């Protein structure tokens, strides 16, 4: 069944969009990532104009994250306090990111920068997580009960300490805000929610327990992507409501299944799967940059990106 998208101005198969939405929704619910880093390239591939894909994707992530977070709220695996602190940073970062993005756009080559950003961050984050979760898996096999090690680093010596009861942390609010800003900037430049950077940052930099990380990440992604959606809708008019509805019908259902699957898996398994997926996307993007493209020429709207 083909549907004509009023803003994208192309006609696409509705079932393909429902399927894509469902797939990304499952990942979203499982890992607490928005899935934008996966969905945005897929939308390019089926012929949605990049500007519309990025903007509409933000809107769809709002839906799947909201659906996912409700399931986490019920299981009490959302640290609202931590989410709020991260969010303050995230919104500042997103606004900064839009400024940076427009500056780079005026210099040209923003496409390349976005792709290099993807390859770099996906590569680093993916490898670190993969290595770490392999170690963790091996350790958990050798020793039945591993003692949680309390790190006393920079995170504990900074001022403005706050107690995050759900996460079981008593740390300064400066690191979460810095993480929020950094992820917000990246999210705006790369056109994603930023979950794939946020999740590892929360685990490794802030020392939050993995089970709480997913719900908390989803919680703050809702607001960052809602903010991005409004920015795109009011400045570029590139949010396609019909496309968003098709993607999010699949997405919200997928997110529920994803949360169910996530609850059954061990934290280490969850992390290793996310790491593998991140590395896979990274590899594909890197390959696209290295292998000679079949068509060396591309068309764009004059004066635009």
């Amino acid at each position, binding site marked *: 069944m083909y549907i004509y998208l*009023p803003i994208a101005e192309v*006609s696409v198969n509705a079932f393909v969009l429902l399927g894509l939405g469902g797939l990304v929704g499952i990942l979203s619910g499982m890992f607490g990532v928005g899935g934008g880093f996966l969905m945005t390239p897929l939308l390019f591939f089926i012929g949605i104009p990049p500007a519309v894909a990025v903007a509409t994707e933000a809107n769809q992530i709002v839906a799947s994250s909201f659906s996912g977070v*409700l399931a986490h709220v019920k299981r009490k695996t959302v640290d609202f306090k931590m989410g709020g602190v991260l969010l303050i940073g995230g919104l500042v970062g997103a606004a900064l990111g839009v400024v940076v993005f427009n500056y780079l756009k005026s210099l040209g080559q923003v496409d390349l920068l976005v792709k290099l950003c993807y390859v770099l961050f996906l590569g680093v984050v993916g490898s670190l997580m993969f290595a770490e979760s392999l170690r963790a898996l091996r350790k958990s096999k050798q020793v039945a009960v591993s003692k949680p090690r309390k790190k006393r680093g920079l995170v504990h010596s900074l001022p403005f300490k706050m107690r995050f009861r759900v996460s079981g942390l008593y740390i300064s609010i400066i690191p979460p805000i810095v993480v929020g800003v950094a992820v917000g900037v990246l999210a705006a430049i790369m056109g994603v929610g930023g979950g794939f950077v946020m999740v590892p940052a929360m685990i490794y930099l802030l020392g939050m327990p993995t089970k709480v990380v997913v719900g908390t990440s989803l919680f703050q992604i809702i607001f960052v992507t809602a903010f991005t959606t*409004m920015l795109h809708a*009011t400045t570029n008019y590139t949010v396609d409501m019909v496309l968003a509805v098709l993607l999010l019908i699949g997405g919200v259902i997928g997110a529920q299944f994803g949360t169910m699957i996530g609850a059954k898996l061990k934290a280490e398994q969850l992390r290793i799967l996310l790491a593998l997926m991140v590395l896979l996307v990274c590899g594909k993007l890197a390959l696209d940059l290295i292998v000679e493209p079949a068509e060396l020429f591309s068309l764009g709207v004059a004066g635009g990106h």
Partner: protein
Amino acid sequence: MQGFFARLLFALLALSGPVSAQDIVLGMSKNEIGITAFFNGSEILIFGALKHETAASSAGDLDVVVTIASPRNPVTVRRKDKRLGIWVNVEAFDVDLAPSFYAVATTGPFDRVVSEASDLWHQISVRQLIRAVAVPPSTNNKDQFTEALVRVREEQGLYQMLPGSVQLQEQTLFSTSVSLPSNLVEGAYSARIFVMRDGEVVSQYQTAIDVHKVGIERWLYNLAHERPVVYGLLSLAIAIFSGWAAAAAFRLLRG
């Protein structure tokens, strides 16, 4: 079907009267295309008759060329090259105006039907059309870029060369059909009909096809552009509601 023929007859009658080029009578299956939610391309049938004075002349066989063009827009063509081991855009070239859709249907092979001079003068082939309106003369290797533009859009089915797709019977009645793709942009499309003899244009006729969004497509498009804040909030409301609905539904399912 009856409605179609009634309209067809009407079109024939309407067009046969005050036509500037006196010797083409033209009909089209539609002169308006509404883009609805389920729009998936459209086929347009163009047919007509050549008046006998022209047709009967003994000077040689007639050919018919039909072109359909979308409104023209500026396009940037970029070229990639290898720099430091990765493929990046190194060169960009702005084509001032190019149609996003262009089809040329002819009775025979294009080069036989249309002489180079006629093509140059009337801008019949898409290459001439782009070259004529669009290219600042100062640029080096501009041909590379305009050729690339044509090649990319041909691959996407947006530029169509349809040699031999116009049927001409008894040197009088002609008909052809052109399929318009699903990713049409809105605007006033123009249909041109040329009657050719020995590669030269002996008569031509031009008419418009109006392509526009209708119904919910129109409404959403207008809302997005005229009330962007409302549109954005509505999008978010839909997203939040669907997220909640799915979660609630699953809670019920699991009891």
